[in-house]
């Protein structure tokens, strides 16, 4: 009996010691130095197998080489985001709970207010005040007028169009060029193009991405219409949505979507590949589509030719607006009080050289003005997006409760077709949203 009790005691001791090992191990990593180096940790939202991940890896390797003498070492982890509540964000949440946040993270720009208000992000205004003018202004992440993030690259969106279908619909090159000229096209002009395209498109004139309501796709691509109609999502402090989300102007933007549905210019049933197969005349999508159209030999665009890009339209009485805001770098408000190494790595990751490497890998537009200078030929899709960003780029609303807005936006888009009174529908949604965001 004694022997058995001893065995049980020994097992219990081993269990207690074993349970303490992880804490001891993490404690060893918790220090700011390892092997004589000051370690600065960074977490990226992509895997190293992606082109973007490879670019980050290159820049981290270069940083480590450059600061070898100064004994500063960057340690990177790559946790890819997925749709919904991503693996990346779950990891971030767990790290915050455990107090093991890395020094630098990448985050999607609309999350800035939420992360900043919950002390995940660190106020970097003073660290980057000398370089902030080097960026496209709308790309910088602010919360309560302080800077919390610097963009990795820029992202905008527009209407990709099928030149062949436009020609068949009698839309001349001259007319097209006017839409992308000094001022973008109006809703009336947009509807007129849709009307003519309807006769030559086998499914819909335009894929407005009304179907993409299970994640951030639809809110990201469609939110500029609210601004372009003169509407708003919330008050300036981001705490009030009633009176903004259900204003006449905002309702007018959703009314424009409904018109597109009612007139059958767009629908919820457009297949994601219909544009690539030549069944749809226009396709609302982000800048990520440019390398796809160029490099993949789609049926409707053999050799990567036969397509163009048009800007966002706007309500004649409103002010043109276009999508902006991609992923950003931010320093975290973690247990490392000395942010010197984090500051150095952050600034390294947003140098012109880093920006160039990243954009070369992804094919996206750089958020650094200098990198974009003379980079794109006049009339190229990238030049159009760049011009659009500079003139009409408007970021998504800075709200702590952005997740609630994004969810509601998707619900509104999804239920738009069957809603007969948009204004009342939005009022009801704004009321529900307000009840939720008050708890933040």
């Amino acid at each position, binding site marked *: *009996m004694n022997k*058995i*009790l001893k*065995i*049980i005691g020994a*097992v*219990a001791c081993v*269990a*207690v010691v074993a*349970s303490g090992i992880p*804490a001891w191990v993490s404690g060893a990593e918790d220090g700011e130095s390892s092997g004589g180096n000051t370690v600065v940790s960074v977490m990226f939202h992509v895997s190293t197998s992606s082109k973007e991940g490879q670019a980050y890896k290159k820049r981290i390797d270069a940083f480590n080489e450059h600061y070898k003498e100064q004994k500063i070492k960057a340690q990177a982890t790559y946790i890819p985001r997925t749709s*919904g*509540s991503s693996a990346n964000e*779950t990891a971030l*949440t767990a790290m*915050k*709970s*455990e107090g093991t946040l890395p020094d630098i993270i990448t985050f999607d720009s609309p999350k800035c207010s*939420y*992360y900043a208000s*919950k*002390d*995940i992000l660190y106020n970097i205004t003073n660290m980057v005040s000398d370089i902030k003018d080097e960026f496209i202004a709308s790309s910088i992440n602010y919360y309560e007028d302080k800077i919390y993030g610097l963009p990795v690259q820029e992202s905008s969106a527009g209407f990709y169009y099928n030149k062949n279908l436009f020609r068949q619909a009698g839309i001349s090159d001259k007319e097209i060029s006017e839409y992308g000229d000094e001022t973008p096209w109006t809703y009336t002009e947009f509807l007129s193009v849709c009307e003519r395209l309807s006769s030559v498109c086998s*499914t819909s004139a335009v894929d407005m991405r009304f*179907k993409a*309501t*299970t*994640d951030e796709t639809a809110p990201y691509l469609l939110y500029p219409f609210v601004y372009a109609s003169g509407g708003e999502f919330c008050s300036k402090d981001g705490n009030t949505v009633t009176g903004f989300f259900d204003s006449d102007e905002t309702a007018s933007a959703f009314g424009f979507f409904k018109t597109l549905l009612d007139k059958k210019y767009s629908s*919820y*049933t*457009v*297949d994601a590949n*219909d544009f690539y197969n030549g069944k749809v005349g226009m396709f609302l999508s982000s800048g990520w589509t440019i390398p796809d159209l160029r490099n993949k030999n789609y049926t409707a665009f053999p050799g990567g030719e036969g397509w163009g890009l048009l800007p966002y339209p706007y309500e004649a009485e409103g002010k043109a607006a276009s999508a902006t805001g991609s992923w950003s770098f931010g320093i975290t408000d973690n247990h490392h009080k000395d942010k010197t190494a984090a500051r150095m790595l952050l600034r390294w990751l947003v140098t012109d050289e880093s920006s160039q490497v990243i954009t070369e890998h992804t094919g996206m537009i750089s958020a650094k003005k200098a990198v974009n200078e003379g980079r794109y030929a006049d009339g190229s899709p990238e030049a159009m997006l760049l011009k659009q960003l500079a003139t009409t780029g408007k970021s998504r609303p800075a709200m702590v*409760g952005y*997740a*609630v807005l994004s*969810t509601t936006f*998707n*619900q509104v888009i*999804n*239920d738009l077709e069957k809603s007969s009174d948009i204004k009342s529908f939005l009022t009801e949604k704004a009321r*529900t949203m307000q*009840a*939720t965001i008050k*708890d*933040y």
Partner: protein
Amino acid sequence: MTKLTVLIFAVMAAVFLGVVAYDLARAKKTHTQFHIKHCAVGFLMIGPAVVLSFVFIMLPILFSLGYAFTDYQLLTPDKVKFIGFDNIADIFKEIFSGGELLTAIKNTAIFVVCVVPLQIIMALGLALFCSRKVRGAAIFKVCFFAPVVISLTVTSYLWLTILDPAETGLFNSLLGAFGIPPQDFLRDPDTAMLWIVLLSAWQGCGYQMLIFLSGLTNIRSDLYEAARLDGANAWKRFVNITVPGLKSSVLYITITVFIGACRIMVQPMLMTGYQEHTVTLSYFMYKQGYDFGFVGKSSAVALLMTIFIGLITFIQKKVLSEK
């Protein structure tokens, strides 16, 4: 929070070791040396399972129970305040004001009411089919069981492809052959939940089929022979022999399918997103807890849901169990 975890772990470990010591001491008094060893080996063998179930089941339940009475927000675990029954009161307010939570409860109720009988009937039908001594019955068993081993995510995407609203979608292509225009099954509030019910019943019934099959083999064949000699037709044999013989299987399946159905989340999440016509209680909890960050409120919903499921399960057991 880590200190609390360690404390709970220590209490649980102490309780477990206390039980072990008490049992061994009792065994020493009343049994032979063989029984004492037998008892100790038993405890050592269940040790890893106890640790795992504590870490992955008990601990989350205990934490969730505690969070239900706090204002815990996901990204501020260091600023948690005890708020008593405020979350519970808010939940009832939301239900009575006809908010999203009420919609989630209604949708979950519709799903449960539809899927439980459907899945049981399908499983029983398949089990009866497979229990017949026909050629290739084993192949059918494998086919019917296959969806169970495929992840819900995969089956949801599979059905998304089948139900694609485009005219090139699999099901819509079929409808198109009969001149019927493409249907947006998952966006239509009248049909979306119906399809989720069908998918779920199809995906899950293979497992219950196996339980019914095992129940069927336990029914003595001489009962059927005697009934046949007495002139009972197939329906009478089914009602008077098969159904009573499967009573315990039906009880187990009803309870497990009911509990599983109450927790439905993956299918609406992947197939429709967070939409009013398909949002369920678990999806509501997930959205509140993970996306919106209101862990306290989400835990309070989980607590009420657990109490409700426990209550219904207790009633089911009382009503269906043999006297």
